[in-house]
């Protein structure tokens, strides 16, 4: 080196506002950006999932049905983007672009953290309770952060976040929205309140707590479906069964499932809008009572029995869709139902409903769009990456967890946050969430989509802390984790063995 090179090897770091001058082979004030031979490099911990002996033995021995004839994954490493850092918002190649071999196939994984200004959270709450009218605002700490969307089978969906709450409202609204999403995505308990509805505590993978009540069971089906499932098991034990449900209340004697097993008529009459025989809508108002209605006394949904058909002594069982509430009646001389003790032989047919209910849970899906600079970190032609993902040539994972990619334009992904490493999410004050993302594909497909081929380094080198050619980030320390066994191994042979555009998960 010549005399005047001493000044040229002193570099100015632009990683933060301090703008340190860093002398050669020294680090800046932060100790995480350094000058190595005149190049600015970054040193931060990273999460690596390691497929070790023990971890892969478990699924192999216990779940032989999954055996698809492919070669067992060898002890293997997958570098996740948790802690990988990001090159946002510039055009630099992603912090890690690593190559590896799966059997005889050359694979490339592009690892980066994404900053998602466009992102949201979809929450599924397993409950029959009426938590609030559709389109009602969902608030956290008084700020609107989302809304109640559709009611689904045994569950209610909330849509939280999205760009309009993040950046379209007041500064405070954006901030609270961001922190609400962050907490939900990191599987923390979050208190939400719904306009004209309930206060709910939501935590991914835990039962919802609705107005202080911990929801235990998710119903086995709607009232009508419950009839369909269990009609034969009740026959001969009781004259009539009504499954009380805010959505579709079922009556066995009128229902098709009863008809086919010759269930006799009982003269029962239900208050509500009849849909098809034995199926009634709107038997009451929605609420926290029986089967998601507002009623505490199930007889309220009944009209008088038809005296031409009904007879005294006739028995009637009423149950909610989860089996949480039930009551047994017999008609007196004037055909009025009188509550009686449950006969012993009905206990099992009642508990079969409860036994078939699954635990009620909150599930949280992160939804985000891979933005421009994130895609630029992968390729010079972002649209080619999008196409490659759509054609199933490029597999997208978040912290090693599988994702669902929405059809249509762009790369809009959804991922179950409980399948990702703990506390994978962070935030930046713009406001936006920071989440890990990895793109894995065959090397030839990476080349075809205009990938940064000159920046590829072998995975083993990255694991040893050797610099990537983009000289941006040395892997100095890392956190090794065993894989979540519920997740498919991100580098499984089956994903890369076909060149055809088929989805191996389908």
């Amino acid at each position, binding site marked *: 080196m010549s005399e005047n090179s001493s000044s040229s090897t002193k570099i100015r770091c632009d*990683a933060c506002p301090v703008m340190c*001058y860093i*002398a050669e082979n020294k680090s800046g004030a932060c100790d995480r950006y350094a000058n190595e031979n005149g190049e600015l490099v970054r040193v931060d911990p990273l999460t690596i999932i390691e497929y070790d002996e023990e971890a892969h033995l478990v699924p192999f021995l216990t779940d032989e049905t999954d055996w698809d004839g492919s070669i067992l994954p060898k002890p293997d490493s997958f570098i996740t983007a948790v802690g990988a850092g990001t090159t946002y*918002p510039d055009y630099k190649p992603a912090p890690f672009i690593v190559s590896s071999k799966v059997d005889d196939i050359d694979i490339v994984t592009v690892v980066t953290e994404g900053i998602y200004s466009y992102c949201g959270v979809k929450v599924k709450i397993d409950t029959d309770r009426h938590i609030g009218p559709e389109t009602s605002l969902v608030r956290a700490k008084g700020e609107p952060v989302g809304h109640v969307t559709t009611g689904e089978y045994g569950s209610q969906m909330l849509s939280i976040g999205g760009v309009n709450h993040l950046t379209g409202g007041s500064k405070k609204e954006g901030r609270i929205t961001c922190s609400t999403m962050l907490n939900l995505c990191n599987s923390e308990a979050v208190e939400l309140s719904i306009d004209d509805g309930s206060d709910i505590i939501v935590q991914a993978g835990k039962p919802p707590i609705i107005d202080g009540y911990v929801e235990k069971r998710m119903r086995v089906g709607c009232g009508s479906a419950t009839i369909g499932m269990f009609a034969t098991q009740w026959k001969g034990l009781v004259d009539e069964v009504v499954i009380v449900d805010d959505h579709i209340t079922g009556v066995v004697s009128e229902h098709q499932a009863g008809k086919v097993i010759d269930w006799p008529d009982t003269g029962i009459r239900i208050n509500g809008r009849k849909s098809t025989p034995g199926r009634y809508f709107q038997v009451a108002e929605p609420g926290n009572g029986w089967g998601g209605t507002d009623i505490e006394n199930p007889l309220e949904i009944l009209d008088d029995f038809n005296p031409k058909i009904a007879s005294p002594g006739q028995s009637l069982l009423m149950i909610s869709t989860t089996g949480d509430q039930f009551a047994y009646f017999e008609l007196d001389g004037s055909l009025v139902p009188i509550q009686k003790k449950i006969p012993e032989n009905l206990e099992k047919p009642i508990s079969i409903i409860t036994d078939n209910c699954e635990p009620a849970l909150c599930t949280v899906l992160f939804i985000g769009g891979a933005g421009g600079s994130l895609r630029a970190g992968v390729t010079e032609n972002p649209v080619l990456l999008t196409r490659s993902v759509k054609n199933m040539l490029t597999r997208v994972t978040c912290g090693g967890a599988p994702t669902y990619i929405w059809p249509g334009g762009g790369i809009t992904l959804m991922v179950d946050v409980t399948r990702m490493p703990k*506390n994978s999410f*962070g*935030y*930046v*004050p713009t406001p936006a969430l920071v989440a890990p993302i990895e793109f894995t594909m065959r090397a030839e497909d990476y080349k075809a989509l205009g990938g940064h081929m000159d920046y590829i380094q072998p995975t083993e080198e990255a694991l040893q802390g050797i610099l990537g050619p983009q000289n941006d980030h040395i892997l100095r320390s890392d956190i090794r984790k065993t894989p979540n066994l519920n997740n498919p191994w991100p580098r499984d042979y089956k994903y890369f063995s076909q060149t055809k555009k088929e989805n191996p998960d389908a």
Partner: protein
Amino acid sequence: MHNLPQSGILNDGNRLHLNHGPIDLIIEAFGDHEVVRSAYEKAQIKFNHILTELVAELSILRAPVSPTQKLLKSAIGLRMQEAVYPFHPTFVTPMAAVAGAIADYMLSVLCENNKLRKAYVNNGGDIAIYLRDDEVFNIGIITDLKTRAIWGTTTITHIDNINGIATSGRHGRSHSLGIADAVTVLAKNSAQADAAATLIANAVDVQNTTLVKKIPANELSPDSDLANQLVTVDVAKLPQKLAERAVAQGCDRAVDYIDRGLIKAATISLQGIVEVVGSRHILTQNCNAKI
């Protein structure tokens, strides 16, 4: 383009990690879940502006403190200036208290609502602590930043009136004029502890020897607040007498600071020698070294 401040909860699910450039904070608050949650949120919001405010005043922060130095505008800058001012005319810049002052400031943000039982802000070893009633804070003291072996532990209670702990020495992130392996100081706040630890570590020194290698600070960090002052880059094994004398110089300075009410206690270590100055009951409990 500059990186933005980042925030996340650490793997244990309890501690808050905030990072922006050289500022790296580990924060833990204790109390009702909701209180902790809202304290963390406030901390996140305030944290966003810290670095840019400090950078705006960087030229003053890097200049030696003097009675004529311009008063700083930012809340943290003022804390830094206040912490180093009592040491004038010894050479010191407000930067000597930067880590501690940030920790103190963030602790004050956390505790604003006065509902926490206990909290700490750890800024790379410079720690601001808050204790209420019967809460205690256990610390392990490391006397050699290179080996990081725990030399002794101590328990701080709210009666001790100690809200700041700081450690300075040769293997830390900033450069030292002296040769101490580590100087740990307990004081009424972290900024004061930080500045004092820096200056006590500077005093632990030997003159006229080839056993210590020093070079101008700005050769290591071109924009160092220490400019062309000589900072230690290497220390060979010193003869016992020489090392003891160096430690004694540090002790003299620490005793002076204690007499002036600036700090409560200090441990000074160099090549296996560990000296404790000040409230012995605080620093010598549970330690396995000979005092």
